[in-house]
């Protein structure tokens, strides 16, 4: 759940009037959502790379990889060798970014032309295609295939969660769209849950695992989700040692050897994260049903609590009513930096959220 927030923070959407009122304001605001979504998924840190990888999804994937690598002292880095494909079929060969690359190849693009007509994609982002080849770093060639698929899948998950959250902010969320996105998220989550333990199993076996197998991997799933959940808060995990394997995509995270210390943190964290994740999905529907601004605020603060506490941010103090992992972190103070400092380092990235809360 916090993952998409990470992307949003790094590239806050353009300033707009909140709360929404009036038809024109609503109309004017609707378009920026598409742009906002775009920008929110293209973190500035990865811009340099995105020009090489030539794709927004690639940028997202690369940013994910970067965050993971930064968090731990490990030389293993996942680099997307080729940009993800538009259609993520399981078991498909190494993906090609057919749309974006073709756009670059025809050479008929105006550099400043941003019309939807010329790109397959939403407005706003200029796609540059310098080349297909990427610098290949890291020694785990076999993992690259798997990890790129997983990175793509992760990007899709992030994008879906962002869509859910953003549509949550719309005045009238389209229930059908939200349900479809939520189902996609569930599907990915299921698959990641299964992949976490059965990476080598044939695709059809991973399709519909019996319930008991899912239950038995719940602990591992929690850890896996904790991995995901902690990503958008790089500051929190800086001083925190994790197994080198855990740097890799979630596919292998379940196999990471767990230090008691780290597992304690992760149990605290991911439990919150996973709970928040589920809660956020549930809350989305509840809020869709009841729909009032305070619910949105509630949703945001609950979702955000796992890795940073809004109260902390706003008051500049450590701790707070809804800081789960923050409390956990305090217990592990020697191993981790003070949450307040990490929170403050993320302050710039919280502008968007704070703006909403303050102005609502």
């Amino acid at each position, binding site marked *: 759940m916090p993952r998409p927030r990470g992307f949003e923070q790094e590239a806050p959407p353009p300033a707009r009037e909140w709360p929404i009122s009036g038809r024109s304001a609503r109309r004017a605001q609707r378009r920026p959502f598409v742009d906002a979504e775009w920008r929110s998924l293209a973190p500035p840190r990865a811009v340099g790379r995105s020009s090489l990888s030539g794709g927004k999804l690639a940028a997202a994937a690369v940013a994910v990889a970067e965050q993971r690598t930064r968090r731990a002292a490990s030389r293993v880095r996942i680099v997307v060798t080729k940009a993800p494909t538009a*259609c*993520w079929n399981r078991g498909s060969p190494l993906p090609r970014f*057919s749309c974006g690359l073709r*756009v670059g190849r025809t050479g008929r693009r105006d550099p400043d032309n941003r*019309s939807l007509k*010329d790109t*397959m994609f939403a407005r706003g982002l200029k796609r540059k295609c310098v080349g297909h080849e990427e610098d290949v770093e890291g020694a785990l060639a076999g993992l690259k295939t798997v990890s790129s698929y997983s990175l793509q899948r992760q990007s*899709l998950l992030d994008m879906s969660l962002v869509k859910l959250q953003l549509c949550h902010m719309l005045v009238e969320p389209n229930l*059908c769209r939200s349900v479809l996105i939520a189902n996609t998220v569930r599907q990915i989550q299921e698959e990641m849950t299964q992949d976490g333990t059965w990476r080598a199993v044939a695709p059809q076996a991973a399709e519909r695992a019996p319930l008991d197998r899912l239950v038995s991997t719940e602990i591992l799933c929690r850890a896996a989700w904790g991995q995901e959940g902690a990503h958008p808060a790089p500051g929190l995990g800086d001083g925190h040692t994790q197994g080198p394997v855990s740097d890799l995509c979630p596919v292998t995270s379940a196999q990471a050897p767990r230090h008691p210390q780290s597992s304690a943190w992760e149990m605290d964290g991911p439990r919150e994260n996973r709970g928040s994740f589920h809660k956020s999905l549930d809350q989305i529907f509840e809020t869709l049903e009841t729909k009032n601004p305070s619910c949105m605020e509630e949703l945001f603060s609950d979702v955000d609590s796992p890795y940073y506490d809004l109260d902390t941010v706003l008051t500049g103090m450590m701790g707070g009513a809804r800081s789960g992992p923050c409390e956990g972190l305090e217990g592990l103070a020697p191993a981790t930096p003070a949450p307040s400092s990490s929170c403050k380092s993320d302050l710039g990235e919280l502008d968007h959220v704070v703006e909403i809360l303050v102005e609502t």
Partner: protein
Amino acid sequence: MHEGSVVADIISTVEFNHTGELLATGDKGGRVVIFQREQEVSGGECKIKNQVHRRGEYNVYSTFQSHEPEFDYLKSLEIEEKINKIRWLPQQNAAYFLLSTNDKTVKLWKVSERDKRPEGYNLKDEEGRLRDPATITTLRVPVLRPMDLMVEATPRRVFANAHTYHINSISVNSDYETYMSADDLRINLWNFEITNQSFNIVDIKPTNMEELTEVITAAEFHPHHCNTFVYSSSKGTIRLCDMRASALCDRHTKFFEEPEDPSNRSFFSEIISSISDVKFSHSGRYIMTRDYLTVKVWDLNMENRPIETYQVHDYLRSKLCSLYENDCIFDKFECVWNGSDSVIMTGSYNNFFRMFDRNTKRDVTLEASRENSKPRAILKPRKVCVGGKRRKDEISVDSLDFSKKILHTAWHPSENIIAVAATNNLYIFQDKVN
């Protein structure tokens, strides 16, 4: 093909009436514009050019504001005035009746003509001002005198406060006394005369909203059997219900679903299988469904798979991720039958629309755009090329404009006249053979 176009707000629904004489469009601004077909020039000299072109043109007949934007104070939500659907009632007297709906409220409008007005009031003068009673010395009987034709639309019924979720469909029953309105989770049955009550006939809302995985996307009554209706879901299923079976039709009578093709499975499989429109054929024997990439024709007697599947724009299958990113994958395309149920039509991107002949299995892609068609010009078939080699006149997939989508089309009930809504332009095409 003969063409006319009107610029308005973004058109959100298009519907011919039962005779095809009137064409109603609803737009995002809550307005309804009704076009009327010009009377054909009689005399049989239809080969003369200027008589041909005057034959059967649609001109603006009436315009009125159907819905206004509202505010739901309880939920702090704006209610859009966009007209989601218009459905005509069969004509029973000189006036025309239509149902129009936005997200929350259905309204019954009466559109009537007035070509005479009374003159010679005793108490009012010609301008309508009250006369001083002291100046009245004689009495006279007001006389009806002809006047310029005036078309007035009056709201006769307002069916409100019955839907928690957004209304996506309305359908008039063949008994002409009831109609249904469907939102994302419920379907209500109304009687035209009663506005403060409706019967809930389908409710798929789970007790725990967290378990919500499926919504209703479209619903329609059977054209002849007033007890039968179908509704489609976001999971690609169609349920046929019989209202005689029970008051609450949560248990379907028939369940139409095509088994998934495992080779095509992806994360987007469910999204693209979501049905955006369902239409009964005029005969009542078939239903047609539109999902993101295909149009399917189902026989009511066969539930396990459709009898025909037509690929609308299969070249988009490899672009699904991008379309998911820019939300185009959630576009709800409609589909229509022609009068004889032999041809089906649906829209696509880049202002393209497709027609499939069910008998000859031929299909054609046409474009609704100002640049490419002049009035009375014949529409040229278009082609989208998927491979590397692009022929002249072909357009490559990457050059398609995804902001120009044709979601709403309509087909005249008996003639080969189609109305195509391209964003805020309405195009009317006619088969010149007719």
